[in-house]
């Protein structure tokens, strides 16, 4: 008995335990308080996050009368879809949507293919320059494309690989206003944010068991076949993550299309959004801006709508795929 008492007194958490036990007599209160705190916090944060969306939506369906009416703030008296129809017309939505979709999908597919090949190379093979090259990949992510706009612009203006094209032509081909400047770098793993995708694939392949690969080698597969038949089919989480991120980023990107695309018929959706006020007013000075505002917001709504739909359908994949791809830890 004495020994027990001695040990009990020597353990340091002693006093805390009794005090804590006193608190936990009101255990349910504490838990309830915590849950309430959490919900209030999240309610506030979610409001902040959703607020712009709600505002955009509610402004898009208002008529002019609603905007000048001080009593309508969120809910319209006259619900109208006319603004959306106008915005659709002014933006040239169908064509721009097609353009954006083509760019996003081809780049995403190429990114998946090339980045997984490169990531696999980094993950599973040892060669001397590996560390240096990987550091270089990280470096390409840090340098923003804005430092290289001029050379890139000129590069694509007189595109000329190794002087071959100018044999035919005198000078190179002008690749502006095509989709080649977007797609060509992805063939080499140098597309938008490719470094990140290479990193994701590398981490993923590193996390796969070595036994799988050894079994493939024993069965006589060369490295390419191992990659192709064994590793790739298992890489679904990483492929999904990269695809979703790449698609969304390319869709929302405004910087590169602004540089390379010149004719209106090739513009992407976000690009058209930037110039929407110009399309609506057609260059005339408009005295009362409230005529434009609902159309502008309707335009915003239909431009972000595809992404929201994609997100609603695949949100589970977005949020959880990052964890499943094993990027961290």
């Amino acid at each position, binding site marked *: 008995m004495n020994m027990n008492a001695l040990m009990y007194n020597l353990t340091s958490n002693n006093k805390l335990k009794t005090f804590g036990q006193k608190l936990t007599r009101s255990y349910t209160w504490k838990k309830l308080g915590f849950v309430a705190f959490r919900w209030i916090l999240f309610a506030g944060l979610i409001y902040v996050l959703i607020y712009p969306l709600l505002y955009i939506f509610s402004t898009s369906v208002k008529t002019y009368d609603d905007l000048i009416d001080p009593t309508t703030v969120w809910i319209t008296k006259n619900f109208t879809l006319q603004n959306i129809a106008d915005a659709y017309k002014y933006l040239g939505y169908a064509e721009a949507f097609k353009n954006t979709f083509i760019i996003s999908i081809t780049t995403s597919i190429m990114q998946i293919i090339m980045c997984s*090949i*490169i990531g696999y190379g980094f993950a599973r093979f*040892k*060669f001397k320059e590996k560390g240096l090259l990987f550091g270089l990949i990280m470096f390409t992510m840090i340098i*923003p494309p804005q430092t290289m706009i001029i050379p890139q612009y000129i*590069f694509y203006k007189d595109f000329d690989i190794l002087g071959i094209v100018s044999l035919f032509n005198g000078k190179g081909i002008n690749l502006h206003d095509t989709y080649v400047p977007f797609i060509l770098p992805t063939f080499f793993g140098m597309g938008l944010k490719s470094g990140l995708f290479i990193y994701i694939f590398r981490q993923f392949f590193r996390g796969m068991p070595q036994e799988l690969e050894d079994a493939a080698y024993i069965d006589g597969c060369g490295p390419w076949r191992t990659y192709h038949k064994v590793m790739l089919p298992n890489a679904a989480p990483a492929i999904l993550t990269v695809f979703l991120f790449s698609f969304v980023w390319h869709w929302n990107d*405004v910087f590169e299309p602004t540089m390379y695309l010149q004719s209106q018929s090739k513009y992407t959706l976000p690009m058209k959004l930037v110039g929407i006020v110009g399309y609506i007013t057609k260059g005339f000075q408009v005295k009362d801006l409230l005529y434009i505002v609902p159309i502008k917001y309707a335009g915003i709504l239909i431009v972000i709508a595809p992404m929201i739909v994609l997100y609603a359908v695949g949100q589970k994949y977005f949020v959880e795929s990052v964890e499943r791809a094993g990027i961290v830890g």
Partner: protein
Amino acid sequence: MKLRSSSLEGKKAIAGRFFVYPWVVGMLIFFAKPLVESIIYTFNELKITKTGLASTFVGTKNYMYAFTRDPFFIDTLIKTITTMVLDLPLIVLFSLFAAVMLNQEFKGRGLVRSAFFLPVIITSGALVYVLQSDMTSAQVNAETVKNSMPMVQNLDFKQMMLQVTNNIRFVQPLIDVMDRVFIIIWKSGVQILIFLAGLQSISSALYEAADVEGATGWEKFWKITFPMISPIIIVNVVYTIIDSFTDYNNEMLRYILNTAFAKIQYAYSATIAWIYFIIVFGVLLAIVGLISRKVFYMNE
């Protein structure tokens, strides 16, 4: 004597090179070459002539101009860097907090996580640009318009505060903070995801051992969660700096693009882009260096 390349190691090394070298080729064409050309341009003066671009070597004239005679450059630079450095700890701390909260099991967790990630999906440069050029908000305050979404500028709230306290020097910073909070929550999407992934990778054995020893929640956080996640804090810091640095509605970026394409001063635009990049890179190295000392690596 066997050749190096005919051992298994050697063969695998060659195969690995096949996998990776396409990237090297791409890097040289699309990255190294423009990079070097861009640096060369900063020392030249580019003029458009009938046959294309003509460059004349002028030494460091562009750099001198940027620092001593350009009215906008230093001003925009300081403003952009200050904004970035101020937002950085707020974003990282907020996303850590949100990730810890989101990591606990509760009903509706999936929905809340999706809500947090929503800004990443819909924020495109175009969106924010269009919203900021909203005329009604530009009349309010041109300064703060650039820092937040205009529709969230609580006009009534500001008026009310002014009436109550009658002191704009007190009210204005408060309003700035409120606007900034909004931007921070919107920019935290990807960081929350990264932290969540990191939190999941902490083995629960550690927490169980802590429970056996009788640790409180607070202690568990500071002694287990925080050290284990400190490498990921660095990842997020780097990501946040790079993200805010290449944000489309970044003032500095807008200025660079403007100089290049609207004012057709190609060489100068490249110069300021490089100065901006070097300064941001310096800031990045400084911050990462400072934090790295406190980082705890489990396996070392």
